[in-house]
């Protein structure tokens, strides 16, 4: 008997690339033949495939959205996009008002989006839900970020000014350091507020999720990632400087010859051209790699932390263990696969990512003994709600 160690239920993904390829390509074909209308059905079928093949403690997830809900959403979203694109040509004032309206409505759309996505997800006969209020959403997504940013800017200005009175060099240094640390901290605070709001409002049936997100922990992650990004950037710049220095100081004549040869375009300068383009290419690529690495690292750390803090009424505990480098590897190899197959390997890439994510995720606790009751049913969705729901799902896509 394992009394102290809770049962570990890893996620597993049972989809296969070959099988999904057929589904995907038929989706593409039907979408083309119906001039895009089928895309709503295609989305549902894709989701059903991925949810239905995601297994936790012997049971699969289900995706229950109706294609028509999605189609309505897509039509409305399309109208909005057209209005967005066409309005500036008609009237600048109208397009400005539309832009402001969009910002003002953003929290509502996000809430509806979260609610729709969770309500159409079912596990063990019980649907998920999102119970966040609009008021809290406005506070979290609009008011607090604005207040934080404003007070940060005020503090920054005052402190910089005071130190500049003492010494302009000191003032400069303090301002730069304060800005770097401050902006990271403010972003960590905002991110903490947002994930606290979202995670604590998820429901599974009558059970509530709760997550204790600490802004200091998020700040630490942000700082670490920022330091790595900055360090990598400075390192690459140094290498670039060294290459430039070596190249120009050792033999200026040779370099000049090389460039002259490129201009002439003779056969013999392929080597020289190759060298120059090679060096430029490698440096260019390393900046891209650095960007991807930083993003992958940040995503992995944040996910691991947030999952680790989340539980379901102290009965079930979420666990995520995404290894940043492995995540980056899957990301990059997926990208290469997609590019070199001219898109045909997209299904393979999606299945690989789903496999990777499932393998890195688990739930601790006795899932099959948790008594839960479904709270959401199809019939509660009113037509107006459906339109709004459908509209909001597409907001994430735009």
């Amino acid at each position: 008997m394992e009394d102290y160690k809770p049962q570990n239920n890893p996620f597993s993904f049972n989809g296969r690339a070959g099988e999904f390829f057929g589904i995907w390509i038929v989706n593409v074909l039907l979408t083309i033949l119906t001039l895009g209308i089928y895309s709503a059905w295609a989305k549902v079928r894709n989701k059903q495939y991925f949810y239905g093949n995601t297994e936790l403690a012997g049971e699969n997830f289900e995706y229950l959205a109706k294609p028509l809900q999605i189609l309505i959403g897509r039509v409305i979203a399309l109208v909005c996009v057209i209005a967005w694109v066409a309005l500036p040509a008609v009237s600048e004032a109208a397009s400005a008002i539309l832009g402001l309206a969009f910002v003002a409505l953003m929290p509502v759309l996000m809430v509806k989006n979260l609610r729709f996505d969770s309500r159409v997800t079912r596990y063990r006969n019980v649907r998920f839900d999102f119970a966040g209020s609009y008021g809290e959403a406005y506070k979290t997504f609009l008011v607090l970020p604005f207040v934080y940013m404003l007070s940060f800017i005020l503090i920054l200005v005052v402190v910089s000014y005071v130190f500049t009175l003492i010494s302009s060099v000191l003032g400069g240094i303090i301002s730069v350091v304060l800005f770097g640390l401050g902006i990271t901290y403010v972003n960590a605070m905002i991110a903490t507020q947002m994930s606290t709001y979202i995670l604590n409002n998820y429901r599974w049936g009558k059970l509530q999720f709760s997550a204790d997100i600490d802004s200091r922990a998020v700040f630490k992650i942000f700082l670490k990632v920022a330091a790595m990004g900055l360090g990598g950037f400075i390192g690459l710049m140094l290498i670039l400087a060294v290459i430039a220095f070596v190249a120009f100081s050792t033999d200026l004549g040779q370099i000049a010859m090389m460039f002259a040869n490129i201009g002439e375009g003779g056969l013999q300068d392929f080597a020289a051209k190759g060298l120059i383009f090679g060096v430029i290419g490698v440096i260019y690529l390393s900046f891209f790699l650095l960007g991807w690495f930083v993003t992958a690292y940040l995503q992995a750390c944040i996910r691991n932390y947030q999952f680790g803090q989340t539980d379901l009424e102290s009965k079930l505990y979420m666990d995520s263990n995404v290894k940043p480098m492995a995540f980056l590897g899957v990301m990059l190899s997926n990208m290469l696969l997609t590019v070199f197959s001219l898109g045909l390997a997209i299904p393979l890439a999606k299945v690989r990512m789903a496999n990777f994510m499932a393998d890195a995720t688990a739930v601790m606790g006795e899932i099959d003994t948790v008594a839960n009751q479904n709270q959401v049913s199809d019939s509660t969705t009113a037509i107006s709600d459906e339109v709004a729901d459908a509209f909001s799902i597409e907001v994430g896509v735009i």
Partner: protein
Amino acid sequence: MNFKGKVFVANGSLSRAARLHCSDEGWLELSDEQGATRARFDELDISAAIGNQPRAISFSNGDRFVADQPLELNAWLDKHGQSSLLKSFEKNFLVIAVAILVSAMVVYVSIEQGLPRLSQSLAKHIPDVVAVELEERTLEQLESVGFEPTEIDTETQQLIQGNFQQLVSSIDDLHPSPQLLFYKLSDQANAFALANGSIIVTDKLVELMQQPEQLNGILLHELAHVAHNDVMAGLVRSALVSTAVVLLVGDSSLLVDGLVSAAVLGLSMGYSREAEASADLFACQWSQKLGLSEQHLLSGYQHLFEYAKADIPSWISSHPGDEERLEQLIQCSASTE
């Protein structure tokens, strides 16, 4: 037929062992220790048939049955009218092959044919103020990207301007009346059109020509871009490509970010080859119509090509290969004699 499995009872998450009796007459009966429920197919909610996914059967009272041997239940459902045409398509190699072929063709045709046409026709509807504004901003920014005031002497400038005005006045069809502007861009020989019809010629290009008349062909080529509204069409095209790519890959993660920017760059670089070829044709035809020397036309192009001697292979660049273009020009001028 009977299937063993479990039932999640009455919208709840707890399950217990159950048995599903499937009758060939089209009804199912779910029984467990607590009792039994019977329902016809049309009263049930059977989850979709996708790949080898286990299909669950939901009853109207909130019970949900999952078989221990899901594949056997799937097979039974398939046999009794609950299969899906879609699923058989998705497993059919012929359908898949046709789907790949058709999709590839549609993508190819819409990029090769649809995109240029759509952007041309959309560009026509863009109000003139946009073009004017764009051109003003481009001109303001030229200096910041290395353009310097011209160093060509006034006499040559006036000569070329004279030629240019003559060309412009004889070509109908030029909606905004184009201006010719000279700039120095270190050693680069180039000419290009802006959004509202102004044409910029670099000092080096003028230097390359032994006589100002040799420039006429290149000016005509740029005037063709103005007449065909290629600049706005190019802008519309890159906007379309980026929107389409974002919409297509919208729901995927950042792994496609790099791919997206590469695709957008590749498809929106410069004008299309067709636009270039038709501009060359335009230059040739008008130079014949106006009775300009065809020797000047050809040597103007030749001087530019020899100097630039593009290193970029033609499949990647927006201009067709130099030799190809010269050959077409020679053909064109020979054809009407």
